[in-house]
C-alpha cells in the first residue's frame, strides 16, 4: 500500500497526487515513469514522473481522468492509499544520462501540451539544477487548463500559449516555437511532450526547422517491464517497446498515425465501462445510440 501525502486539483481536468514510494523515489530519474493501480479491480496506469523527493521518499504524479481506473484515482484523498505503485520504469531522459559537458553546450527548448506539462517539469528542473538555461513553451486549449505555471517559471524561460488566446501567446505551442526561431533563437534540441497529436505536429514543425526532437510516448501498456508488448511503437523501420526501449524516442522517426490508432484501441470498451461505473449497470450495448457495438 502506498500512501497519498497530498492530493490537489490543478485544473478543470488535471489532478496531482504526491505519493510515498521510497524505493521509487530513491532510484528514479527524469523521463522515467511509474505504474499505479488504485485497487484490486483497477487497471495498471502508466504515468510519467512529474517530480520526486529522494529525502522524503515521495513521487509526484499528474494525470487526467479518462477511464474507470483514473476516475477512481480522482476520488482518492490525502491520507488514502494506492494499492500498487511500481517503478521507476523505462529509460531516463538522455539529457540526464548523456555527458554533462555535452548537454551544457546545448540550447534546449521544451514544448509541453496539456497534461504533458508534468513530465517536462523534472527535465527542465534537472537542467536548471545543473546550471543549464532552457526555454519552455507550455500550451493549452484555454487559460484554465494551463498547469504548473509557477513551478515552470522557476526553472526556465517560460512561454505560455493558449489556443483561444485567453492567456499568453494566442496560438499553439509550435506556432510559439516558430515565432521564437524567427526572432533569432537557435535550438540544438527540442523535447516535445503532450497528447500524441500535439507531438506529431511539433515534430513536423521541428523537422522543417531542422531541430532534432525527442518525444515521450505514452501508449497502452499492461506490465511496463517488457513482458506484454502492448506498447509497440514503430520508430523508423524498427518495432520498439516504449516501456523498456523508451518512453523517449527520436520524434522524427515515430509513426504517429499508427500510434494514435493503437492508443484508441479500447476506446469503446473503456467508454462503456466508464458509463457503467458512473451511471450504474445500464449500458449493455445494442441500443444503437452510441454506435459502440458497431
Amino acid at each position, binding site marked *: 500500500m502506498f500512501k497519498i501525502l497530498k492530493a490537489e486539483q490543478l485544473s478543470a481536468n488535471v489532478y496531482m497526487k504526491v505519493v510515498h514510494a521510497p524505493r521509487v523515489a530513491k532510484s528514479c530519474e527524469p523521463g522515467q515513469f511509474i505504474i499505479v493501480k488504485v485497487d484490486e479491480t483497477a*487497471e495498471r496506469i502508466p504515468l510519467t514522473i512529474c517530480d520526486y523527493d529522494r529525502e522524503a521518499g515521495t513521487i509526484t504524479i499528474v494525470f487526467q481522468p479518462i477511464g474507470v481506473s483514473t476516475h477512481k484515482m480522482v476520488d482518492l484523498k490525502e491520507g488514502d492509499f494506492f494499492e500498487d505503485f*511500481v517503478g521507476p520504469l523505462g529509460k531516463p531522459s538522455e539529457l540526464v544520462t548523456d555527458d554533462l559537458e555535452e548537454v551544457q553546450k546545448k540550447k534546449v527548448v521544451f514544448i509541453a501540451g496539456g497534461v504533458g506539462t508534468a513530465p517536462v517539469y523534472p527535465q527542465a528542473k534537472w537542467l536548471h539544477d545543473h546550471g543549464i538555461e532552457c526555454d519552455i513553451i507550455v500550451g493549452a486549449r484555454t487559460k484554465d487548463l494551463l498547469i504548473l505555471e509557477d513551478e515552470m517559471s522557476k526553472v526556465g524561460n517560460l512561454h505560455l500559449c493558449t489556443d483561444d488566446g485567453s492567456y499568453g501567446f494566442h496560438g499553439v505551442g509550435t506556432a510559439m516555437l516558430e515565432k521564437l526561431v524567427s526572432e533569432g533563437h537557435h535550438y540544438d534540441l527540442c523535447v516535445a511532450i503532450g497528447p500524441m497529436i500535439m507531438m506529431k505536429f511539433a515534430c513536423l514543425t521541428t523537422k522543417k526547422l531542422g531541430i532534432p526532437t525527442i518525444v515521450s510516448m505514452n501508449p497502452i501498456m499492461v506490465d511496463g*517491464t517488457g*513482458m*506484454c508488448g*502492448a506498447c509497440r511503437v514503430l520508430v523508423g523501420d524498427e518495432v520498439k517497446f516504449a516501456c*523498456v526501449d523508451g518512453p523517449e524516442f527520436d520524434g522524427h522517426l515515430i509513426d504517429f498515425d499508427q500510434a494514435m490508432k493503437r492508443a484508441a484501441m479500447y476506446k469503446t470498451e473503456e467508454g462503456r465501462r466508464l458509463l457503467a461505473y458512473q451511471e450504474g449497470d445500464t449500458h449493455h450495448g445494442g441500443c444503437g445510440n452510441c454506435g459502440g457495438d458497431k
Partner: protein
Amino acid sequence: MGDVLKKVPVREQDPKVRATNFDEVCLGYNKDEAVEEAQRCINCKNAKCMEGCPVQIHIPDFIKEVKEGNFEAAYQVISKSSALPAICGRVCPQESQCEGRCIRGIKGEPVSIGKLERFVADWAREQGIKPEASVEKNGKKVAVIGSGPAGLTCAGDLAKLGYDVTIFEALHKAGGVLVYGIPEFRLPKDGVVLPEVENVKALGVKIETDVIIGKSVTIDELMEEEGFDAVFIGSGAGLPKFMGIPGETACGVFSANEYLTRNNLMKAFDPKYDTPIAIGKKVAVVGGGNVAMDAARTALRLGAEVHIVYRRSEEELPARVEEVHHAKEEGIIFDLLTNPTEILVGEDGWVNGIRCIRMELGEPDASGRRRPVEIPGSEFDIEVDTVIMSLGTSPNPLISSTTKGLETNRRKCIVASEDVGATSKEGVFAGGDAVTGAATVILAMGAGKDAARGIHEYLSK
C-alpha cells in the same frame, strides 16, 4: 473395479459447457476414484517414476498412503519435495516425466500420478493442512527475485532450512506465470495458486510486490546496502517474440503474453474488473505450444471463432497432448502446415486478415523435428479481426544489464551451473526460464530446489 490396464477416468466439464466459462476443465478425482487409481500402482522397488520427477517426489510412498486412505500422510510425503503440489498436479507434463517412466505404462496406461498428486493437494487444502514450518532461524538473509514457480520453490526450501527469505515481485500479485500466464480454467487462481503461495508464506517467507529488480533496486544494492547474503534470480522469460512480418503493429495484434495477462492477472473476463480486452469475432493464434493453446482457449471462451495457425504438422505441435485434445474438443480449428507471411490491415488500422503460405515437411532440423518448407505460390488469406502471436519468449535483460559481473549467453539467458545454479557472480544463483529460456513450471521448480541446496551449501561454508 474397472480395467486394470486403464486409468480411472477423470471427470471433466462437458466441452460445450466449458467453452463458454472460465471454470476449471478437469474436475479431478474424488476419494473413491483416487483410492481405486492408487491400487493400480505396483509400488516398484526401483521406482522409475521418481527418476522422471524434476523434484524427486517419493511417488510410490505417497501413492501407498493414498491406497490406504491416509491422505494427510500422503500430503506430508509430497510436501517434503514440492511446495506447489496442487499446481504441479495440474500443469506438469506428466506424460513425459513420472508417468512416462511408469512400469504400468509398458502394457496399458501408466498410473495417473498427476491426478493423484492433485487429489492429495486439494484434499489437504480443503482440510486446512499446511506444510510443516521450519525449525529455528539461522539469521541469514536471502533475496529471491520473482515469485513464479522457481522463486516460490527456492524460497520455500530455504525457509524450511531456517533462512530469512524475501521474495521480490515486479507485478502486483505473487505467482509469476502461474498468475499471469496460465488461465483460470487450467489453474484456478484464488482456489489453487493463492493458497499455495500462502503456504510458502506460512513457512516464514516474506513477499514484497511492486519491486522491479534492476530498476527499483539492483542486486548489488540488495547485497551491499540491504544485507542480503545471497540472491536467487528466478525472473522468468519475459519478452514476447514477434515474427517480424508486415502489419504486426496494427490494432488487433497481440502477444500471447498480453492477451493472457489481460485475462488472467487483470481478469478482463470478469465484468467487475476495469481491464478491457479485444474480443475478436474470428481470431488466429500463431504458434503451437501450450501458451498458444491457452490463448486460443481463452479467446474461444470470450466468444470468438479461433484458429490455431502452425507451420508444422500435428505431430510436431509442442503443446501437451492433453491440451491439444481439450482444445479440439472445445472447437478450436487447427490450420496446420500453414505459416503467416503478412498481417492484412484495413484503413482503420485494424487487422482484417492474415496472409499465409502452405508448408510441407522436409528434412529434420537441429531440433530433430522435420523442417517446414514453403510451397511456392500457395499463398492464401484467412479473414480474421484478431491475431495473437504465441512464438515463445526470451529472457528480460532488466537484471542482467544492471548487475555487475553477471554473465549471460548468446540468447541473453543467465549462465548458471547445472547442479546448483551458481552464476558468475559470487553469492548469486539463478534458475528457471531466466536460465533455460521458456520451459515448464516443474523444470523451474527443480531449478529452484537445486539452487536452494546450492545457496545452503554456499552460506554454510
